[in-house]
């Protein structure tokens, strides 16, 4: 059974159709990608999946349950985590505190617990700490846990965002252009990390990416959209030889030179 | 190093604070003045302070009280209950023998408890909400006629003018609401009609809604129970809106400013007033002295404030000591003390036995005594 199923998804605002009748699905345990030229609507798809945009029509089924029109925090709680295209760390907080945010939806102590420091609350705090450190360790940043997030190098900040997403204990991890701004070595580490997350943590991965080399290397299934419409789907080889895809990308280049 | 700096600066701040409360520790007779010297009512407050200080200076010139010189100390009530309590505590802490003051009723109320608990005799020259009577612990004496007296004066004017339908407008503060309520009670008890009972917000410029409402009820008279500043705007807009019948204002509106702001709209407006200096034959020399000392004319509560200080000095002399309880007793026993604003005696509730309200009327941009 597919972990995520998107049927007839459509999104429009102010009369502009950003996504049109999009269908695709992601198998549990796979690494899938969504590609398309600039402005094709990829991030909008992510925003619909994670509840940031309210789709105009269509249905999103995640882990057997419809999550269409659910609020973002509920979707996260159901096991879908995301990273952002432009880093969205809590800049003035420490790396560890950043990662702890992911544990919020897996814990429950309220104000009363906080004021009286009940046994339950203390135990929960310890768990939050411990698991967050585990996540940081997984991405190799445990040593930097007490540093302020904005003081880290760009590549490290990206990894903090990953650790934060992992701390939500997701089933599906959505990565919005994870390789943007990374150098060659960092990209290699990224590929390795993506594979480790899938293999060791058994988390399904869905990513948007511009770096075709990386996409082709990691993805098992690729969906291509242009102007909000699906134009192709398949594995790396199929996509690379698909005339529609080539046209879409070349067309884009024309636009750029124009 | 830094630690000691931090602590010492904290300590310094505290020490400064504590010293503040301990100014003036001579053998003089210390009298507290509690008036608003900051805030929106500061002009009145400073005027009262001036008048009280003038009285004190005159008393000192004549040899003081029981051989002691009077030293005054002002606490700023700012017309705000919180600041007033702190001002009252300041005066009590400075160990004043008595207090003259109280302008805003709302700010005076919470201080009554502080003075009452300390047993300090108090003469209130201006604040006159009837609620002050209920919480008086017996140590405070109001020498401004209370709302009850003003209502009596107002009603007598309305009756004389053959008014039947009355509209009352107040400003949503303790003083003007109190006066408005008392007037309504009295007027309806007389079997007459209050056709409109309205509130305006302080400082609000547009009163068209009020004007239309009042006009639609076609009252024979409109009674504005609040202060001059907003009163002027209300009068102006009532006239602009085509209201032609009688308008009367309470003592809070007794100010030349009202006439200045309202312009010709104010012609013929009646005003109930406590006796102000220009209408008091006995106050001629006071007026001259005040003007000579402070280079300005005394305002509405100057005469009463001056009387307040004089009365207090008189009571202390009669008590023969600076014992607070004795002074209170002497104050209560005051019989026809001749102040420049009229004779003072007290009822058993420590309010003025005889009303001293007068009626003024605006003519050619000036208030004149209504005959």
């Amino acid at each position: 059974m597919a972990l995520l199923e998107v049927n007839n998804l459509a999104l429009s605002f102010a009369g502009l159709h950003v996504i049109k009748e999009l269908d695709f699905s992601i198998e549990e345990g796979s690494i899938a990608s969504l590609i398309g030229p600039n402005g094709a609507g990829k991030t909008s798809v992510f925003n619909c999946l994670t509840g940031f945009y309210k789709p105009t029509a269509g249905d999103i089924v995640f882990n057997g349950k419809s999550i269409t029109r659910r609020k973002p925090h509920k979707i996260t709680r159901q096991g879908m985590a995301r990273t952002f295209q432009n880093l969205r760390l809590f800049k003035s907080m420490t790396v560890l505190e950043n990662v702890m945010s992911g544990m919020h939806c897996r814990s429950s102590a309220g104000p009363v617990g906080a004021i009286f420091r009940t046994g339950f609350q203390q135990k929960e705090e310890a768990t939050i700490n411990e698991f967050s450190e585990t996540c940081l360790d997984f991405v190799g940043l445990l040593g930097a846990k007490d540093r302020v997030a904005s003081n880290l190098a760009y590549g490290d900040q990206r990894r903090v965002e990953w650790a934060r997403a992992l701390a939500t204990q997701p089933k599906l991890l959505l990565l919005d252009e994870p390789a943007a701004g990374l150098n060659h070595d960092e990209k290699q580490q990224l590929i390795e990390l993506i594979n480790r997350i899938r293999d060791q943590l058994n988390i399904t991965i869905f990513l948007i990416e511009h770096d075709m080399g990386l996409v082709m290397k990691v993805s098992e299934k690729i969906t291509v959209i242009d102007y909000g419409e699906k134009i192709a789907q398949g594995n790396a080889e199929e996509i690379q030889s698909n005339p529609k895809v080539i046209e879409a990308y070349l067309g884009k280049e024309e636009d750029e030179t124009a | 190093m830094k630690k000691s700096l931090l602590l010492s600066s904290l300590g310094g701040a505290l020490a400064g604070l504590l010293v503040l409360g301990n100014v003036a520790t001579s053998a003089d007779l210390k009298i507290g003045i509690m008036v608003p010297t900051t805030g929106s009512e500061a002009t009145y407050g400073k005027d009262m302070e001036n008048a009280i200080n003038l009285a004190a200076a005159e008393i000192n010139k004549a040899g003081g009280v029981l051989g002691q010189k009077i030293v005054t100390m002002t606490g700023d009530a700012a017309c705000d209950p919180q600041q007033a309590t702190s001002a009252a505590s300041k005066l009590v802490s400075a160990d004043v023998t008595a207090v003259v003051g109280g302008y805003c009723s709302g700010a005076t109320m919470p201080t009554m408890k502080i003075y009452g608990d300390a047993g300090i005799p108090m003469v209130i020259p201006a604040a006159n909400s009837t609620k002050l009577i209920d919480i008086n612990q017996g140590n405070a004496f109001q020498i401004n006629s209370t709302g009850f007296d003003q209502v009596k004066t107002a009603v007598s004017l309305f009756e004389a003018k053959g008014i039947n339908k009355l509209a009352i407008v107040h400003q949503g503060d303790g003083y003007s609401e109190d006066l408005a309520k008392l007037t309504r009670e009295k007027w309806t008890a007389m079997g007459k009609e209050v056709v409109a009972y309205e509130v305006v917000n302080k400082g609000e410029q547009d009163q068209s809604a009020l004007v239309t409402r009042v006009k639609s009820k076609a009252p024979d008279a409109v009674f504005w129970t609040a202060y001059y500043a907003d009163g002027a705007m209300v009068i102006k807009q009532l006239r602009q809106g085509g209201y032609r019948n009688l308008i009367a204002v309470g003592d809070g509106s007794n100010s030349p400013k009202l006439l200045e702001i309202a312009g010709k709209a104010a012609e013929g407006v009646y005003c109930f007033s406590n006796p102000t200096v220009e209408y008091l034959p006995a106050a001629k020399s006071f007026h001259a002295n005040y003007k000579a000392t402070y280079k300005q004319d005394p305002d509405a509560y100057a005469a009463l404030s001056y009387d307040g200080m004089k009365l207090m000095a008189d009571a202390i002399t009669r008590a023969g000591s600076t014992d607070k309880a004795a002074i209170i007793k002497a104050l209560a026993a005051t019989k026809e003390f001749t102040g420049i604003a009229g004779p003072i005696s007290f009822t058993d509730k420590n309010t003025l036995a005889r009303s001293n309200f007068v009626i003024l009327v605006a003519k050619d941009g000036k208030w004149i005594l209504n005959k």
Partner: protein
Amino acid sequence: MSIQDILLQQLANGLILGSFYALVALGYTMVYGIIKLLNFAHGDLYMLGSFVGFIILSFLSTYIGDGWAGILCSMVLSMIAVGLLGVLIQRIAYVPMLSAPRLSILITALAVSMVLYNGVMALTDGQYLAFPTDLSYEGFDLGNVFITNTQIILVGASFILMIVLYLFVHKTLYGKAMRAIAIDQDACRLMGINVNKIIALTFFIGTSLAAAAGIMAGTYYGSIHFFMGFVIGLKAFTAAVIGGIGSIPGAMLGGLLLGLLESFGTQIPFIGTEWKDVFSFSILILLLVFKPTGILGKTEIERM
């Protein structure tokens, strides 16, 4: 007075109140539209407008009298002076804050408002000042309904100002630049538009409209004081929201609508004058909750 009379009278009252609201609301909406800043100090600039007008008129009245000519002169001068002050405030207080968190900008705007408000309070000792003009009450007496010439002139003047503004924004290059900046500042910069200059111009126009309203209010109501800007600032903001914040016709419409709404609202028997502000604030809150985009505002991407 019959019901019809009351309604007619309140229509007239509502129009004049509404045109003051509209003039002040325009400044809110223009500034908000262009840099997304809620200028808390805007109501105080209205207040300042009338004080500057007061000073100029007191000075001018010995030369050209305190009639309409004097009022017009002082209005123009005060609009320029206060408009420049608006630009100065923007330069000193708002420009350094543009990249700061929203909370900081809001508090800064509040602080500016407090400085102006308390500054005038300190200067005037908290006193009400009589505006140095005393216009006649002549006008039309339609039975029980009374409309003065002053009212007609003031409503006319504010409509003229609004029409001029509308034409400026829609027909001139500067106006086009303003609208473009509201949509995308960076793109405008790339297109060679002097963004800072246009923002300053927006502040100037918005502020001078508030100043114009301030002088008109001084003329009409006859007295001015340091806190006259607080309530009208709030009401004008409400008006801007009713119309759809960021929309210029919206602010005009919202202003008039709120003026009329208040005027009629206060005549409802059980809502006395004492509940008037509760009435308008409730409208504001309900509106913000249920239709934050207002009547003419653009809808944004619907977020969950």
